[in-house]
């Protein structure tokens, strides 16, 4: 078992190294492209973290942006009020998000489909209302400006190109960790729960434990990416936790192709770029966005990744 895992690790490490090398010179293309690439990477972490829940465990979440916002607010408040290093802050943000994930995960153990979707949606609404109304802590709807950047030692992480490399390393590291989790015994168990919970129970799998574990892993990385976002954009507001934001992240995971980890990265890239391209047609932007989701769900439910696999197979044959 360990041998197979190591073999897989080596094989996928090769792909990650290749991707890393290819992406290295990107900041040469200018600040605008670099900014887009950073946004894609931050969304990739969030979308991939949601995939552990949706794609691997079969639990739909419509409140994932709430965890993202919890991470962002935690790290921001720690660094601005207590002077704690943002590097520590983003980890604490991830941990706090996963504690909330645990709290939400326990009652939702028994819930499925629309029930779980609505409770996660409700959780998102409650978090957003808290961020708006606890204004002594969060400054309410106006949000928090002037968040300190990540300290980078000799590197100035205010500059987009320096931040790009930090984001690249962290994104690849996160995706690699998520990838290893999904390929490990834990990932297999999660998938067995998605496929048939009763069967998993009958062969002695501790189903509740693994369901909660999926929540903890998934929400940790969502909180982590929220913290990164806060110290990159350096402004946060309760709008981060809005339902539309959760749906945006879910769209990336699902349009990209869920249950694959690579799919959500593609989804993040395609939807972020699409948003930019459609910016001149501002009022029709979401019309196209919505139509795209409908079309993918109706005709190509395995998403962009599925489409790519299909095309690759066609070309090879």
């Amino acid at each position, binding site marked *: 078992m360990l041998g197979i895992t190591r073999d897989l690790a080596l094989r996928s490490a090769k792909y990650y190294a290749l991707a890393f090398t290819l992406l290295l010179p990107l900041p040469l293309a200018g600040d605008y492209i670099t900014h887009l690439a950073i946004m894609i990477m931050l969304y990739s972490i969030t979308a991939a973290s949601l995939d552990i829940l*949706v794609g691997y465990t*079969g639990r*739909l979440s419509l409140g994932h942006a709430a965890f993202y916002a919890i991470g962002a607010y935690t790290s921001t408040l720690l660094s601005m009020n207590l002077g704690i290093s943002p590097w520590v802050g983003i980890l604490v943000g991830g941990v706090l998000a996963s504690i909330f994930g645990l709290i939400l995960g326990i*009652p939702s153990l*028994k*819930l*499925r*489909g*629309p*029930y779980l*979707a*609505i*409770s996660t*949606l*409700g*959780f998102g*609404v*409650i978090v957003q*209302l808290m961020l*708006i*109304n606890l204004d002594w802590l969060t400054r309410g709807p106006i949000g928090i400006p002037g968040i300190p950047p990540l300290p980078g030692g000799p590197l100035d992480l205010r500059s987009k190109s320096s931040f790009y490399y930090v984001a690249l390393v962290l994104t690849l590291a996160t995706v690699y960790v998520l990838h290893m989790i999904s390929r490990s015994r834990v990932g297999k168990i999660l998938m067995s729960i*998605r*496929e*048939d*919970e*009763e069967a998993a129970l009958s062969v002695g799998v501790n189903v509740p434990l693994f369901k909660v574990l999926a929540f903890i892993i998934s929400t940790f990385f969502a909180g982590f990416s929220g913290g990164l976002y806060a110290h990159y954009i350096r402004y946060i507001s309760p709008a981060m936790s809005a*339902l*539309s934001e959760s*749906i945006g992240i*879910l*769209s990336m995971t*699902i349009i990209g192709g*869920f249950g694959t980890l690579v799919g959500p990265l593609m989804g993040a890239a395609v939807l972020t770029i699409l948003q930019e391209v459609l910016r001149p047609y501002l*009022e*029709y*932007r*979401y*019309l196209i*966005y*919505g*139509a*795209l*989701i*409908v079309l993918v*769900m*109706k005709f190509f*439910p395995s998403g962009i990744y599925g489409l790519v696999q299909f095309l690759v197979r066609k070309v090879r044959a």
Partner: protein
Amino acid sequence: MAVQPTLFMEQTVLGLMMGGIYAAVGVGLTMIFGVMKLSNFAHGEFYMIGAFLTYTLVTALGGDPYLLAPVSAIAVGLVGIALNKIVFLSLYKELREAKGAAAFFFQDLRFIMLTIGLSILFVDLALVLWGPIPIAIPSAFTSYVVKLPGGLSFSLARIMAFIVAMVSLVVLYTFLMTTKTGKAIRATSQNPSAAALVGINTYKIYDITMFISTSLAALSGGILGPIYNIYPTMGLDVVAKAFVVVITGGMGNIVGSMLAGFLIGLAEGWGGLIFGTEYRQVVAFLIMILVLWFRPQGILGGRRR
């Protein structure tokens, strides 16, 4: 915290009136879930489109929203049928052939995402057609104020909205309980394959259910237009509330949804008094969480999770 009796009475009546609307929107949603096993996240957008269509009819033709809301409700209902035929029909057929828990999860997810996509699409369509600025539907009833005993006064528009919601709920209940089509809808909800065996055309039942559900939502939007402002994203707030109503009442349970609508409306009115109006939304979700913990089948029982 001391609560003034007049304020308490006012919030109680307002809560019950709002509850009537929640019930009407929730019943449509629970019917779609019960009959078609479809969680329709675009349900709130039918409510929104109903409101805007009523507005357009009122400004174009003159006349009162309480006369024209039913017209726009029927139009939106027809859109619902068209959507059902174009978008959902092939998915139902796939779902019937699907086997195993994973396949069901997958279809469930597909339905949810598909309707979320539709919701985004409709919101933007409304934004393009009617603009982002909240507008009020003009109605003569808004300016009449009815004085009730105990120092309470409400606009006639509010009372009209409540009456229309009540009448439509009673009509729907009678329809489902007494007519042949109503019985066929209930049969399909209980067991689609058995219903098909005894000669019910279930796909036609799906169309009728979609019509009832969407037109009820549109009617609610139209009759609330003279009281609250209407805007493209108004459906998003309502769909969350409607799902709370549906879960509290028991998924697929029509009477449960009617009761839960009033319960949530009332709880929001009182919750607003106790915790402040900014936490009204939290009250509804807290009730839902409590119901899921202690009585997951809903207050009157419904489909198992």
